[in-house]
């Protein structure tokens, strides 16, 4: 049972452009059946949770996936982890097509892709000790015989995430939200994955604790070279931790850019509205900002608007937007957006 050997991992200098991506998603669509309509129930209804999206994550990079409710960001994360059925599209992980993996092969994939949950209170089995919880991945994949053999490695992992080693014989209820989230991160790291999907990992935490966990994630990335798919609705946090950001609306990716580019030169009207809606904790600055308030609500995912899904709320919408969906194109270097008028 070798210990976590940090020297073997590529140092996290950040992603390099010429390396092939660790994760590549192309044309991904996820439709959930929700029932039937029509007089005889002949027409099947689907929720178009995710529609034809493409994205890439390179080794050691953090891609922030940001969007409001109904954007499809969580569904995307789950689809990438192969937890929900994919309607169309392909996913490649480290060169391997994982779109249709099943059974043992899929279980094997779990060693390289892990998930950090949103709810630190519900994601740890309250009846299991921390040792059992963090060692479970090791036991399940045959890396250790018994939980007790993993005690050293678990202690190491706990220390890596900033928890005392004697935490391992306590139960989750003895810990605060932030500490539980660290335990969740330790569990995700146990198998030494290449990619961690973090689904709203700090939303349920207090502000001061949030900062601790965000710093932890960044430190881990630097030390171990982890890649993250950071899914969140809080654009401030996402901008802070990500290298690149993808903005989703109503199941589609509307813009993808480097984090500075996105802020300084947002191309898609939704991105602009989103940026202006995010409150800044500084009354003076906040009063001076031009705030673009969107009217209307997020569209119904069962029957999304025709053409560009954002056209019903877009201040720049023209006739064309209601008829034809704009393609997702490269508008500037490494800066993609789907809009007819930018």
């Amino acid at each position, binding site marked *: 049972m070798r210990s976590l050997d940090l020297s073997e991992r590529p140092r996290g200098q950040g992603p390099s452009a010429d390396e092939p991506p660790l994760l590549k998603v192309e044309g991904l669509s996820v439709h959930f059946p929700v029932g039937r309509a029509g007089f005889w129930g002949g027409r099947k209804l689907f929720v178009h949770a995710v529609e034809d999206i493409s994205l890439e994550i390179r080794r050691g990079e953090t891609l922030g996936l940001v969007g409001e409710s109904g954007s499809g960001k969580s569904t995307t994360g789950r689809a990438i982890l192969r937890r929900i059925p994919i309607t169309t599209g392909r996913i490649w992980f480290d060169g391997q097509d994982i779109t249709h993996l099943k059974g043992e092969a899929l279980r094997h994939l779990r060693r390289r892709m892990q998930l950090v*949950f949103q709810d630190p209170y519900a*994601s740890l089995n*309250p009846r299991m*000790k921390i040792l059992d919880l963090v060692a479970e991945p090791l036991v*399940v994949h045959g890396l250790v015989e018994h939980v007790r053999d993993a*005690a050293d490695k678990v202690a190491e992992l706990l220390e890596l995430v900033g928890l005392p080693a004697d935490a391992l014989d306590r139960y989750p209820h003895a810990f605060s939200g932030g500490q539980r989230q660290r335990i969740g991160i330790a569990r995700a790291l146990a*198998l030494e994955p290449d990619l961690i999907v973090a689904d709203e990992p700090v939303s349920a935490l207090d502000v001061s604790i949030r900062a601790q966990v965000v710093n932890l994630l960044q430190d881990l990335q630097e030390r171990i070279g982890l890649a993250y798919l950071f899914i969140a609705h809080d654009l401030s946090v996402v901008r802070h931790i990500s290298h690149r950001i993808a903005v989703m609306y109503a199941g589609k990716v509307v813009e993808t850019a480097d984090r500075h580019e996105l802020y300084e030169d947002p191309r898609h009207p939704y991105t602009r509205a989103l940026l202006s809606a995010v409150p800044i904790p500084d009354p003076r600055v906040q009063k001076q900002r031009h705030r673009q308030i969107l009217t209307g609500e997020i569209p119904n995912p069962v029957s999304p608007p025709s053409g560009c899904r954002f056209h019903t709320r877009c201040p720049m919408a023209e006739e064309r937007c209601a008829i034809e969906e704009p393609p997702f194109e490269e508008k500037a270097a490494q800066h993609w957006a789907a809009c007819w008028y930018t």
Partner: protein
Amino acid sequence: MAKNVTDEETRAERREELIRGRPYEILRALRSALREIVSDRVGLFGVGVVGALVILAIFAPLIAPKDPAAQDLTDALKPPFWYADGDFANALGTDSLGRDILSRMIYGTRITILVGVSVVAVSGAFGTVMGLIAGYKGGRTDSIIMRVVDTQVAFPGLLLALVILAVIQPSATTVIVVLALNGWMVYARMTRGVVLSVRETPYVDAAEIVGCKPKRIIFRHILPNLTSPLLTLAVLEFARIILAESALSFLGLGIQPPQVSWGLMIAQGKDYLFSAWWLVTFPGVAISLTVLGVNLLASWLRVVADPQEREKRFAQSSTHQTGAGTGT
């Protein structure tokens, strides 16, 4: 955290503690449970009744003053001891064949326990497994199993039992089989419900993402959530089975003489209801008290197993006692 002991030593010590620690924890849990019982009168009554039942059943030959089947026609229909012609030899009187009522009641506990525990064990085991399979696999398996449950529930249970027993030779064994056949559905439904809700919890999701196989998920993550509700359900079912068995025995389709059952005693005594009331009353009271006690035990268990309920009771009691005080 003091760092004056070397890390190696502390780590080794902790691991030892972990392995040896579990029995200690169980003991601690038992002791706190004991403290809880004593403080709750209602629960104490329930536990007392069930405890007495068990003790009487196990030690019946040592406790019962007479042989329950021994007939003595000269002593038939003797009243209880507080009557003029009663005495302490037959403290609760005798029946029409001169058999001692008290001894028969004590021996009756054996049947009560035997039938109750057996039926609960068999129907509980079967029902739980069915519920587990239905809940975990879902889809068609779930539908099929649940339709079977629904169908069987729709049949009038006791009526079915009566019909079967009227055809087959009634005995303790057949009673157990019939009641078990009738009783498994409620376990299946409950288990399925718990499994379905636990499956959606993030920690089960996490276990699957980590790579756990279904067997491990069921045993390690889902099953522990079942112990508390199953226990409460089993105890409540136990009460219901006692009543059902008494009813069957009363109708002559349950326990047969020379075995003793309280329901049977009532059947045997019903013709003497107005002349020798003690033949029917004592077994009747025994049934009532037992069922009451078991129900109270179940209700106490439910509160004890649920931390939120315990908090509520604590809050009410502490503010009652101390007014606006500072609590404990």
